């Protein structure tokens, strides 16, 4: 038996199903809305509905878009022969924030996860392979998460992107800026060493 009115309990349950929100936070958000002006709830509801109804996946890169093709895919200033492969649309946002990348994207919709049973056939990898030729891709930059699943996905992509003339690169994983060397784990420090860059002299 719930202590709340049914409609309130439904609201709490709906928030609790969202990623990163536990039962306590769900309760807090629900009661915040109930205490605030009705306007605030109406705005939230219409923002959710509008975003959900107006957006879809870009037909080319599977980023979230309001049109058939997303704003990045139709931007003529973007290098069309450079492709950055990411797991989720939010990773597109993260890479865009760096202002370092001027190519296009391909969103896989997840990562290979043996323990959850997510294999390559459940990701948009076929679609990626279908883009490389027609778009005359010169380089694919693999930008998956630096965790086990992202690593598995990068290894698989490297295996299937065996196309003559195509450059496949992977973002360097190294030490977080602002961290102390002595706290780095072995794998991260090892990667940072492997991916070191030359600052003087010639490479051997």
């Amino acid at each position, binding site marked *: 038996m719930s202590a709340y009115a049914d409609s309130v309990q439904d609201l709490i349950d709906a928030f609790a199903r969202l*990623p*990163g929100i*536990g039962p306590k936070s769900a309760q807090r958000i629900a009661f915040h809305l109930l205490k605030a002006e009705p306007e605030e709830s109406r705005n939230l509801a219409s923002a959710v509905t509008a975003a959900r109804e107006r957006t879809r996946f870009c037909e080319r890169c599977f980023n979230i878009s309001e049109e058939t093709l997303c704003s990045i895919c139709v931007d003529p200033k973007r290098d069309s022969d450079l492709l950055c492969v990411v797991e989720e649309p939010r990773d597109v946002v993260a890479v865009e924030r760096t202002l370092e990348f001027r190519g296009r994207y391909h969103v896989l919709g997840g990562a*290979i*996860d*043996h*323990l*959850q*049973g*997510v*294999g*390559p*056939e459940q990701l948009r990898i076929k679609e990626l392979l279908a883009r490389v030729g027609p778009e005359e891709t010169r380089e694919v930059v693999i930008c998956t998460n*630096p*965790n*086990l699943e992202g*690593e*598995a996905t990068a*290894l*698989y992509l490297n*295996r299937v992107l065996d196309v003559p003339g195509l450059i496949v690169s992977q973002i360097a994983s190294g030490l*977080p800026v*602002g*961290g102390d060397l002595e*706290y*780095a*784990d*072995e*794998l*991260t420090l*090892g990667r940072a060493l492997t991916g070191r860059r030359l600052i003087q002299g010639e490479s051997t």
Partner: protein
Amino acid sequence: MSLYREVAVVLRTYKLAEADRIVVLLTREKGKVRAVAKGVRRTGSKFGSRLEPGSHVELQLRESRGDLELVTQAETVEPHVKSRSDLTRLGHSAALLEAVDQLSQVGKPDPRLHDMLVGGLRVIEDRDPPLVVAAFYLRLLAHEGVSPELDRCVGCGQVVERLYWAPEVGGVRCGPCGGGRNVSPESLSVTRATLGGGLNAVLDLPDSSKTHDVESLASEMLELHIERRLKALRVIHNS
């Protein structure tokens, strides 16, 4: 609440809230333990890659009243560098972890199971033989006391020339007793060797239709035992 140290293998992890993870551990002395690792998903986390599936670690844990303990320190015991940079090794390791996760229970210490897992992951890191997963599964079944019967018919107990594979009854069966699937005598003898004293020779076998056969036999038996499908093997076969 008291602090204690444990050697463990991370079996799997789940996302929790913004940046935390729940890690499912197979500790040597306490059996399966679930614990929270705070901030582990931030790229600057002090735990870094140490708490990912397959990591062999020494941990400091804080006991709690609930069923989730807290990871306060983590040091690597054996780094599995190759197992993270090679897709086949990575898949094989996952196949071992998945099976052990299914068989281990909270509150039931099983040091032997822990040692088998550590040994299996080490073999994958060192040389990753094609039969490593099958051999591990067969030895797990033996450890559970449910080795398949491979010598005589499960139905009548007779040793006959032609035996068929009938995992649902726990091994091989003769034609008159109901038969089963065709399986080559070579595959059966490799399976027998894995369970007997021939493990090292088995691990030297190159990839072939015979080793694939043995892997199917082993995984079918294990799936029947745990009453669910194994996910990692399916991903391996699709990638």
